[in-house]
């Protein structure tokens, strides 16, 4: 009897290295490792020629320049053929006047979507839900967002997360709720009683020893 290879199904978690892949895209065959050295927002959409996805692709295109300023690339994915992707991006350009500048994976065999846990069978067995993986220049997963089929994503939030992650990496700080660039950041809490005593004397804006803000 012929042995059938089971698909690799999983969900890589925050902090883990993103599983590498080689996939056919609208811009040639790409490997995840091709993006090493830059940040990557990799996202899935349910299907080409669908209304919410079309609005999202236009919105992703609008923030692409801002992402590039942050050394960040975009990579889309759906369980459609490359011909379907090409037809759809041409249609978006013709009807909506927006040229999609980033590559889109044609994941017909669901190899990539299974590796990244993008198919949620209770929602759809054949379409990917709206996932966003933010991957850092060392291919480590830093953020995972999931949206249902019916809810389009918020691009400002994606930009905000990229800004927050890059700020955290650069300044070794955390970012509070609703943080935006320019707002005070959170100084990591001390991990000893001695550190706690010193913290309040360090000139930060401290509400208490464990909650201190500073301006960058």
């Amino acid at each position, binding site marked *: 009897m012929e042995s059938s290879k089971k698909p690799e199904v999983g969900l890589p978690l925050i902090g883990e290295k993103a599983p590498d892949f080689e996939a056919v895209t609208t*811009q*040639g*065959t*790409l*490997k995840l490792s*091709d*993006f090493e*050295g*830059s940040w990557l927002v990799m996202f899935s959409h349910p299907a080409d020629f669908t209304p919410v996805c079309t609005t999202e692709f236009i919105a992703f295109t609008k923030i692409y320049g801002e992402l590039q300023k942050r050394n960040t*690339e975009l990579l889309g994915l759906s369980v459609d053929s490359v011909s379907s992707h090409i037809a759809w991006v041409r249609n978006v350009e013709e009807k909506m006047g927006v040229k999609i500048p980033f590559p889109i994976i044609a994941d017909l065999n669901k190899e990539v979507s299974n590796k990244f846990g993008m198919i949620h069978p209770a929602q759809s067995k054949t379409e990917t839900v709206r996932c966003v993986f933010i991957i850092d220049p060392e291919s480590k997963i830093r953020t995972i967002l999931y949206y249902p089929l019916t809810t389009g994503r918020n691009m400002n939030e994606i930009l905000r997360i990229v800004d927050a992650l890059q700020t955290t990496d650069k300044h070794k700080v955390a970012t509070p709720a609703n943080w935006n660039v320019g707002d005070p950041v959170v100084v990591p809490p001390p991990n000893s009683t001695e550190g706690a005593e010193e913290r309040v004397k360090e000139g930060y804006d401290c509400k208490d020893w464990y909650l201190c803000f500073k301006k960058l």
Partner: protein
Amino acid sequence: MPCVSPDGKPTKSGMATLSAIKNGASTPEAVSEKTGQPLFKVRSGLRELAKAELVEQKDENYKLTSKAEQLLS
């Protein structure tokens, strides 16, 4: 394919990559800087150009094959 057409001929971006290598860019990073193409595209394109026997890779460096030299002359 971004750098090589199904008929085996380099595309516009493939030609730009070959020209950049001819003019001294030997790493993906240098090609990206010279052509203005994103690094991920250059890496993928160089794989295709290598498959089409238009470039050769040694460690991190790329050089043109005689086939590519002919094409550019």
